[in-house]
Every structure is written in C-alpha cells, then in structure tokens.
C-alpha cells in the first residue's frame, strides 16, 4: 500500500513538473456564428520571463497545401487572443505557431505547432435565437388579428387626432383653393417610415384627385420619386380623372439635405399652401421645413419615427404623428379591415413585449443568470 502511495506521489510530482515546463498553451476553433474563413486563437503564456523580455508576438500559419509557414499577424505582447481572417479557406486544416520577439527582432521564444484547426461557414447565428423566436411570435400574433379582422370581427383601434387632421386639412385646402405640399422625408425606399409615408400619400392623393385640388410632392430620393409619381398617378386613374394629373407637381428635387430643405422652404414661401405634410424620415432639416411652413400660415401635419426630430415637429406643427403612429396612419385612413387587424395585432405584440420586459426585469433583480443574453440578443 505504501509503495502504491509513493508511486502515485512520484507520478503527481512528474505531472506537475511537466505542466510547469509547458510554458505555453494555445487553443484554436472555428469562429462561431460567422460566414466562415475565420479561426479564433487564444493562448496562455505561463513563463513570465518571456513576457518581460519580448515585445511582439508573430503569428505563423501553414495551410494543408502550403509547404512553409507564413507570418499572418504581428501583435502586441499583451495580446491573449486573435481572430485569423487573413485569406483563410473554409474546410481546410491549418497549423499555427507563435514567435515571441524582443525589441531587436530576435526570437525569445518559439512555440510548438498547434492544430490542425478548420474554418467553416455557419447556416444559423445561434446568438439570434431569441430574436427569431420573438419575431415568429410577433408575426403569429399580427397574422392572427389580421385573420380575425378578415372574418369580420370588430376591432377597436384608438383614433389618432393627427389622422383626422390629415383628412380635414385636405378638405380645408380644397375649400381655400390652395395647394398642399407633401414631403415624404429624406430617406430611401427601403425605410419603413418612407413606405408608411407613401401609404398615407396614396390615401391623400385619392382624396385630392376626387376633390380636384392640387398636391405638390417634392422628393429627395430618385427611387422614392419614381414610386410617389406612380402612386399619385394611380390615385388619379382610380378616381377616373387621369388627365387631371400634373407630372410636374410630383418631382425629384435634390439629394442634398439642406438643398432639399431650401427647395421645399422656397416652394412653401412661393406657393402659400393651405396644408403642409411632413411624413417620413427627417433629420436636421425638420425644424427648417416646419418653421418655414409655419410662417406661411398653413396647417401643418408631421410624422416621423426619428426620435431626435419628434420634439421639433411637436413644437412647430399643428399635429404630429409620433413614432409608430406614422405607420398606423395609412391603415386608419382607409377602410381595409385587414390593415386594422394588423394594427390591433401590433398593439398585442407590444403588450407581450411589455410583459416580457417586466418579467425579465424581475428575474434579473432576483439574480437569475442568462437574462442579459436574452435581452441583448446578438449580432
């Protein structure tokens, strides 16, 4: 028994000695949740004397089909990990070694070879699992309410004063015999606020075409111009008055932010419109437009999802659609039950989000682990 204990003790001492002799450990793995061509390396240097003398770390790599190692990166001595994205090929084994060099470039310590490590491309970003789950939940709830509305279920949606004001403003402009100016913002067609603005424009244009009043739409983006032109033209066609459409009233102005502000301000000063609509995405030009419009005495209705510009519109316009109200306006102006159903579904998704936030907040207070990961999601 004693001999056995001695043997174990000797083995333990040898093992300890061997570990302390291995002054460098390197691990490598494929970078997770990426498009491939990347290997994550991390290392641990146990020998403090190397850290004291060395200044830089040189990373060397050799692929399966390469005969010699190539330097891929020069790092500071304090670096502990490195993601190699330097011309890696997927599904190819790579070997690595590191050199620690001093100020004169002499090698202080050279590690053994590590690997092979293989880079691969992933089909799903697991960090976005919670986002995917919530997206599906949101889509399910919205589609459920759209379906309910389609089947004839009466759904109540809070009326928005700004939406009613849009309809009143069109009527007012028609009575006064003055034009209306409609700005769809300064963003691109892929922006949701621009799409929401075009949805409102289609409803406004229908009323304008019906009443025979005039709507001027200066555009910032040429693609947005192409769409607004067709939408307004379509509204005139739908109302049975295609000849009343004036192509020069829907036009591309400029793609420079302040040139656009200047152009629209000048337009409002010259035309003296009865109503101005600023619906879409705006930046610093929002107050310039709103104040220039206010000086003409027109009724002004604005709406944006740009949180930094909402205060400017609130103080300078008669009605403001705040954030998501802009998205809802198009649905509230029409009589399509499915769009109302979508709005109702959207409200319930918000309710679910609020409940989830409160529950996760309480769980976080009680120290339940993993809440940060759920809340933060991933990129």
């Amino acid at each position, binding site marked *: 028994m004693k001999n056995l204990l001695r043997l174990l003790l000797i083995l333990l001492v040898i093992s300890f000695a061997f570990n302390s002799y291995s002054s460098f450990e390197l691990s490598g793995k494929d970078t997770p949740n990426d498009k491939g061509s990347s290997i994550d390396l991390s290392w641990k240097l146990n020998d403090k004397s190397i850290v004291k003398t060395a200044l830089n770390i040189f990373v060397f790599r050799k692929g399966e089909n390469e005969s010699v190692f190539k330097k891929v990166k020069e790092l500071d001595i304090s670096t502990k990990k490195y993601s190699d994205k330097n011309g890696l090929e997927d599904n190819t084994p790579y070997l690595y070694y590191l050199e620690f060099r001093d100020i004169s470039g002499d090698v202080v310590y050279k590690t053994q070879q590590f690997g092979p490590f293989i880079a691969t491309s992933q089909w799903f970003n697991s960090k976005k699992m919670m*986002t995917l789950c919530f997206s599906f939940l949101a*889509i399910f709830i919205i589609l459920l309410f759209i379906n309910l509305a389609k089947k004839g279920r009466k759904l109540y949606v809070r009326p928005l004063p700004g939406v009613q004001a849009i309809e009143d403003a069109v009527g007012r402009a028609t009575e006064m015999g003055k034009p209306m100016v409609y700005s769809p913002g300064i963003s691109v067609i892929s922006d949701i606020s621009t799409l929401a603005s075009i949805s409102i424009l289609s409803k406004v244009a229908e009323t304008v075409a019906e009443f025979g009043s005039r709507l001027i739409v200066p555009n910032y983006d040429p693609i947005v111009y192409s769409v607004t032109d067709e939408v307004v033209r379509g509204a005139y066609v739908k109302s049975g008055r295609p000849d009343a459409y004036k192509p*020069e009233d829907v036009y*591309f102005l400029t793609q420079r932010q302040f040139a656009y502000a200047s152009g629209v301000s000048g337009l409002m000063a010259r035309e003296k419109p009865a109503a101005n609509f600023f619906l879409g995405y705006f930046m610093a030009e929002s107050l310039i437009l709103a104040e220039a419009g206010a000086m003409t005495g027109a009724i002004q209705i604005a709406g944006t*999802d740009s949180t930094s510009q909402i205060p400017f519109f609130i103080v300078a316009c008669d009605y403001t659609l705040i954030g998501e109200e802009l998205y809802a306006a198009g649905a509230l102006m029409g009589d399509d039950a499915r769009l109302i159903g*979508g709005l109702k579904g959207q409200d319930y998704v918000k309710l679910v989000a609020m409940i989830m936030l409160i529950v996760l907040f309480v769980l976080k207070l009680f120290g339940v682990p993993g809440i940060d990961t759920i809340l933060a999601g991933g990129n």
Partner: protein
Amino acid sequence: MFLKKTVPFLITLGMGLFTFTYYFVPHKLMQNMWDMVSDWAIIIGGGALAVGAVSMIRTYYKKAMTKSDPNRYYSMITIVCVFLMAIIGFITGIKPGSLFNDLFIHVMAPCESTMFSLLSFYIASAAFRSFRLKSFSAGLLLFSAIIVMLAQIPTGETISAAIPGLNIPLIKTWLLNYPNVAAQRAILIGVAIGSVATALKIILGIDKSVFAGAGGK
C-alpha cells in the same frame, strides 16, 4: 394588372423573405447573394437618378416657361446651374482642384452651411412658441427647458453654488438620462414593433398601397 400588382407583390415577397433569412443566416452563400443584391440596388439607384434628373428639369423648365409666374426666374437659374455644373464636371472632372470641385466647395457648401445655420434662429422662434405656460404639461416642459438651458451655461453652476442643496447640472443630467431616455426608448420599442407589422403587411401584400400604380387597394 398582372404587371402593376402581381409582379411587384411577388418581387416584394421574395426580397422580404430573403432579407429576413439573411439576418439569421451568416453563411457565405447568403453573404454573396446579399452582395449581389446590393450591387443591383446601386445600379437601380444610378438609373433612378437619371429619371429624377429628367423629372426635375421637366418641372423647372415648365415653371421657367410660364410667363405669368413671377418666380419663373428662379427656375431659370436652377436649370442653368444644373447644366453648367454638368458641363463643367464633364470637361474638368470632379477631382479635388478641378473647377467643378472648387464650385462645389466654395458655392454649394457655404449655401448648405447657411441653411444649417438658420436652425439656431428657428430653434429660438420654436422655443418661444412652445414654452408658453398654457397647461400643466406645458409648465413641465417649460420647467425642464429652463433647467436644461441653465445647466448648459455657467449661470447654472453660479446659481447652484449660491443656493445650498440646489444642483442644477445634476438635475439636468437626471432629466436627460431618466425621463428623457425612458420616453425615447418607449417610442423606439413601438417603432421596432410597428416596423415588423408594417413590413409584414407589405411583404404579404396586405397593404398594397405602396405598390406603384395600385391605386391604394
């Protein structure tokens, strides 16, 4: 109707599903497809710019030719400038040091800066109108605005030093970091969920008003 409604709907549906999938799939294949689609977008943007230029010239030409319009000279100046800049750009190029670039830097940029500087005057006039004490909410806005403005200037610190227990910069920081951020985040959450709902309605063709020429329904 097939070209006006069905084709745009199918393209929107396809691209919507592709974009949704791209967000969750990092694979190289998706990345390459995304890059290709981005290139298409650039090409379409270039073509659309030509369409936009034609539209702008047509609009201003019509205005310039309307003799009864007293503002027609502005339209003439716009058209002359558009063609002049295009011709100069073609002849001298657009690199730094060229006449085109000089005109842009010494004429266009100062004009834009002038427009931007108007903001300071508009902020003053907008503040004058909004800070009138008409209701309790307006009172809260007025009070918060006075605190924030005082904290931005040395007077805020001077008043704080004179009155024990009062720290105007601290109140300002609290106002900006808590009530302000809470309100902004509430709007942002609403915007995010609203974006999902709006995108879904467009992708699935429930809201067809954005499809050009569909005429609303």
